[in-house]
């Protein structure tokens, strides 16, 4: 059993169901991210683990102990909010020491722990300041320090990086992950930002409409999406209707208009059970555009016309027409990006594709 387990959790607000019968296990010491668009139930789930919301049905256990009826202040959790929520009328030292006051420590122990944790978040010199005297990034480090100094059983992070500006957010990702690994604390992280989820997590729980779409490592959810939603939510994908004609030891054969027959490796299509309608998923960065003259081994090649180009600096995003379909490709720029109206050869390897069952929507 994991550090945190949810079993058949349901949460209804009036007639609205925010979370539909959800179960998951969060292993001790792991960094698990709940990822999904707003309104998918990820924050509701986090707040149920925290004890800020009671589940309508189901059971929550923390370290093997059922906590449904344990109020939040007895759950021993670390909670970090998007807006930091540092107490504005207390100094940084008082903020960090707040949780220690309820834990029967001597004054000397408290002071030592506050010093140690301020060192850990690399802000040893701000103890006597007030929160509003710190920058956003510093405040968020203090919020983290305040949450971990009490040595909680679980650290819950509710979009902690969303209020920071882009550059700082990248730095804080690294910092947060470093601290999490250093103290080995079980962490549940809520975000709508896929790159945060992929960069930091041991496991990603992709959610939509109150349901779990997929649980897996960042690579699993990225490379082997379990549903069309997952493949669309993470990165940019081309999803094409296809027909699965055959399932063999090598993989499954898909028939598509224009593309012809493509064989996708079996481990890239774990959810396709047999012949019938299916969907072919090609990541935008797996489609390579090239001049028609260049030859490439092991890749299928199709002719297409560039319809639009979005310049992104080191890479470019292309909208390419192939037959009656428009596909998206993201390629590193080699010397110069392809131009609108240019005819290109679009190439990809079948083994980079994934397939989904295809009850077409």
């Amino acid at each position, binding site marked *: 059993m994991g550090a945190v387990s949810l079993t058949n959790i349901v949460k209804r607000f009036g007639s609205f169901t925010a979370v539909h019968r959800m179960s998951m296990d969060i292993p001790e010491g792991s960094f698990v991210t709940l990822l999904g668009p707003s309104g998918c139930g990820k924050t509701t789930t986090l707040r149920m683990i925290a004890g800020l919301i009671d589940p309508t049905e189901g059971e929550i256990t923390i370290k093997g102990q059922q906590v449904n009826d344990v109020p939040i*202040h007895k759950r021993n959790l670390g909670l970090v*909010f998007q807006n930091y*929520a540092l107490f504005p009328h207390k100094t940084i030292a008082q903020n960090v020491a707040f*949780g220690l006051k*309820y834990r029967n420590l001597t004054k000397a122990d408290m002071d030592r722990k506050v010093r140690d944790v301020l060192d850990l978040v690399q802000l040893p010199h701000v103890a006597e300041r007030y929160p509003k005297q710190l920058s956003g990034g510093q405040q968020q480090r203090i919020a983290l320090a*305040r949450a971990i100094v*009490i040595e909680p059983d679980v650290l*819950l992070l509710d979009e902690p990086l969303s209020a920071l500006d882009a550059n700082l957010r990248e730095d804080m990702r690294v910092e947060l992950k470093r601290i999490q690994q250093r103290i080995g604390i079980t962490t549940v992280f809520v975000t709508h930002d896929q790159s945060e989820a992929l960069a930091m997590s041991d496991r990603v729980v992709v959610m939509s409409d109150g349901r779990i779409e997929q649980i897996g490592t960042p690579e699993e959810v990225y490379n082997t999406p379990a549903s069309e939603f997952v493949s669309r939510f993470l990165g940019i994908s081309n999803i094409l209707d296809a027909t699965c004609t055959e399932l063999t030891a090598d993989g499954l054969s898909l028939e598509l208009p224009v593309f012809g027959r493509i064989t996708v490796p079996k481990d890239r299509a774990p959810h396709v059970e047999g012949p019938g309608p299916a969907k072919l998923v090609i990541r935008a960065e797996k489609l390579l555009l090239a001049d028609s003259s260049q030859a490439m081994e092991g890749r299928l090649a199709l002719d297409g016309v560039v319809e639009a180009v979005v310049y992104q600096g080191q890479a470019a995003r292309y909208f390419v027409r192939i037959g009656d379909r428009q596909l998206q490709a993201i390629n590193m720029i080699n010397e110069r990006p392809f131009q609108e109206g240019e005819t290109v050869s679009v190439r990809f390897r079948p083994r980079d594709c994934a397939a989904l069952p295809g009850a077409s929507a």
Partner: protein
Amino acid sequence: MGWPLIRVYTVLVYLFMFLPVAVVVLLSFNASQFGSFPMTGLSFRWFVELAHNDAILRAFRTSIVLGALTALISTTLGVLASLALVRYNVAGRNLISTLLIAPILVPEVVLAVALLLFLNFLSINKSFFLLLMGHVIFTLPFVILVVQARLVGIRRDYEEAALSLGASPVQTFFQITLPLLAPAVFAGMLFAFTISFDDITGTLFWKPGGVETVPTQIFAMLRNSISPEINALGTVMIFLTVGLPLLGLAIARRMAMQRGG
């Protein structure tokens, strides 16, 4: 209308509003027996006489005790009511809110008579306690309005963070919510005190025999004669009821600034 005319007009309005008050303050320093112009000299004698007038001193004490108790009870009830209305999903929240604010909207005479008739109906005699309750009823809305407005602005995050760190709901209230709410609580208290201190309508109806507050005492004195002492008393009242809230608001603003708004 040009700007000069508007300026003159504005000055006239202010004169109309404040000249009578200024006259009272001015005449309270008049040395003459008769509270009228021309002034015969500057003197503090009416203030001295005031300080030796037992009836007035008694009224003063009554008013201060009444005001302080009203402020205390109103603020306590007001904070609790605001917490319930803002932080909890109470059934009929809007109705309760309207009912609590209603005493501001009902004319005070009507409220005063209604409470008096109600007490008669219950065959309860007038007492200091009932006078106090009357004052609480019509100062409560002011406290609730002020405290509620601030409470809405205090994010729930702070309380949730405190709870997650192991503080019980009661500890959270005293450690986090109340300190953040302090400027509003303080302002509410001052409102309640000043409103109670210079109330006359309700007090005339509710006060038991023999109990006088400063306003009812002035009223009683005016019925006999217009003594210059009344001017002095008026001056003291003006400084108390205008100066105290101004001072209070200044302190509240400073507190709010220190607490990071």
